[in-house]
């Protein structure tokens, strides 16, 4: 037990607690809904969370550095619409090029956020609240109220969300979900093993110290916004592929779902801790609730009230579980190192200027 406690940290298994909550929710719904344990249910949840997950990964990086990006919904809509228009008029475009353009467009919008936050020293909330309106506004003005429609898109794009990349029995792992998974895994590995990625954590954990030891804070914050923009651009492409019909309203309000996923996923809104896996589990938690509540036969009008309550409970129970775990671990450490037991934790460092 002690060996285990030495190796594993409460912060690392908070994801586990979320997983337990998700499983509990699934068992709960399963006992009330016929045919709930089916591949279809899995597919529903998987497809519905794929896009949010990709954006949530980017958002996690930003939140880790003690910032927030509220413009992601507008970036997703912006790229979905413009890449959609582009593909609609050039049906022969190379798919890889199309994806690359979506990512580049998203990244470019992220660059704007990043530059203003990092070098302009404007609080991220202020910047992205502004660009939330600006990106959407520019999109509406430029679009001329046209809608991107499915029939104008090439067949490969329409089929993309239905492609089954890893058939396991009759369980489909569809392309978009697979893409989201790959991104989560890649970024989880990246943020764990890449030296420069560890700086996202360092900077959010103690910006003052980061400055004093000479970490390139500005570039790291900038990078977080660019990656978040790029992933939002990719999500815009995924949105285009999945829904086919893109109006200028695409992705509106997505920022709130993404922030909810990140918060439920245990990423500390004050920076420094949390993982992209957690963010994905947060998205899965909310996606499971959304998809299942409806099938429970709850009236449409009750959904949001119940969803709000459940999100609150998820956040609360996560906090309680983590606290319990810390106590459990704390007790063990007392014995391990009798020396370290001071009282006043000066955790809360000064808020950034």
């Amino acid at each position, binding site marked *: 037990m002690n060996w285990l406690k030495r190796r594993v940290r409460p912060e690392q298994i908070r994801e586990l607690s979320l997983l337990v909550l998700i499983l509990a929710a699934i068992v709960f719904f399963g006992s009330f809904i016929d045919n709930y344990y089916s591949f*279809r249910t899995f597919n*529903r949840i998987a497809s519905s969370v794929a896009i949010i997950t990709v954006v949530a990964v980017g958002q996690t990086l930003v939140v880790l550095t003690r910032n927030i990006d509220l413009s992601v919904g507008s970036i997703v809509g912006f790229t979905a619409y413009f890449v959609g228009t582009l593909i609609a008029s050039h049906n022969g475009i190379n798919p890889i090029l199309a994806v690359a353009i979506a990512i580049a467009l998203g990244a470019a919008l992220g660059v704007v956020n990043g530059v203003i936050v990092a070098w302009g020293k404007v609080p991220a909330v202020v910047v992205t609240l502004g660009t939330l309106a600006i990106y959407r506004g520019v999109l509406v003005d430029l679009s001329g*109220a046209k809608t991107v*429609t*499915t029939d104008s898109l090439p067949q490969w794009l329409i089929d993309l969300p239905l492609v089954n990349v890893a058939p396991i029995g009759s369980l489909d792992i569809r392309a978009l979900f697979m893409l989201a998974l790959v991104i989560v895994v890649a970024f989880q590995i990246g943020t764990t093993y890449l030296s420069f990625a560890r700086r996202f954590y360092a900077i959010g954990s103690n910006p003052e110290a980061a400055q004093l030891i000479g970490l390139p804070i500005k570039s790291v914050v900038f990078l977080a916004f660019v990656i978040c923009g790029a992933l939002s651009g990719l999500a815009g492409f995924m949105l285009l592929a999945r*829904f086919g019909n893109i109006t*200028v309203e695409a992705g509106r*309000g997505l920022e709130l779902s993404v922030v909810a996923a990140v918060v439920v996923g245990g990423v500390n809104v004050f920076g420094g801790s949390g993982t992209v896996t957690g963010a994905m589990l947060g998205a899965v938690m909310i996606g499971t609730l959304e998809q299942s509540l409806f099938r429970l036969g709850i009236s*449409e009008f009750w959904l949001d009230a119940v969803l709000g309550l459940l999100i609150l409970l998820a956040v609360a129970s996560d906090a309680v579980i983590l606290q319990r775990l810390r106590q459990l671990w704390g007790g063990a450490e007392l014995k391990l190192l009798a020396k370290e037991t001071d009282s006043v934790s000066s955790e809360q460092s000064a808020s950034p200027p």
Partner: protein
Amino acid sequence: MTRFLMGAAALAVLAALPQCALAQDAMATRGKAVSMVLLPKFLGILPFDQAHKGAEEAAKELQNPTPLQFLGPTPQNSVAGQIEIVTNATTQGVKAIMISNNSGDQIVPAAKAAQAKGIKVVTWDSPIPSSEGEDVFVAQVDFSEIGKVMADMTLDLAGPGGGKFAILSASPDAANQNAWIAAMKTALKDPKYAKLDLVDTVYGNDESEKSYTQAQALVDKYPDLKVIMSPTSVGIVAGAKALQDEKLCDKVKISGLGLPSEMLAYTKNGCAPEFALWSFIDLGYLAYYTTYLLAADALKAEEGAKFKAGRMGEYTITKDPTRAKGLRILMGPFTIYNKDNVEAAAK
């Protein structure tokens, strides 16, 4: 009574020389400077842009030297935005406002204030439910008619055996959709539709994403669902895409109100074999004509008044049978689109 007699007399004359007399009416008022605002529910989707196009066409014909203002709010701020635009237009002292009302009766105070300043308030596409603050409503089609057509199309697609169907609407607050759904429910009382079973009404908030997942959720929840009826152009396309992606088009059909250009592919592949719509270009054209004549005092907003609206021919102001009070001009009819005519209309 005298008025009635005069009206009758006029009618008699008109009956004799319909073309000439009415044309004179319109000709006489041509070229007047009438500042007008065309106010859609919100900016950014195709039907309202088409209506704008139609209105501009009418403006050109009528040689109104004052350019038409096409102003709309953003979707997430539609109610407050519409009220703001009406209020600002009142301040500016425009002559007439044409509203596709998205605010229910919440627009009434602002519309009344506009009327008090002598501004003509004409609604089109979507009326003010209480009709207060509104001079006349230019209805695309008869709302109870829409209910019947929706019921007919459902029965058609479900087959003579009938079956379960569900409605995928816009937002719970969308006045048009709510009125049409109510009309459909009334129509369903006819024994003809006895075998149709309306199992659920869900809302996609006129967002493609939400509508798509709602359609999916419906087929999950009701495995033996036959038809999804979506009286909104955003919902029907998203729903059709969902059914196509689920490879369920053989079992479940979607229908409702949609734009031919957006529905073309689904009608051809059988996901949405038939759906209905009217021309938004014509609607904008007619709304403009009506409003211009009202504002130029060439037409009175009262029951029985007749006028000629350019290429669209003659219209009469009548009582609105679908509301407790209020006047209406019925454009009608709408077209049912299927694989035979959709391609031509999509152009």
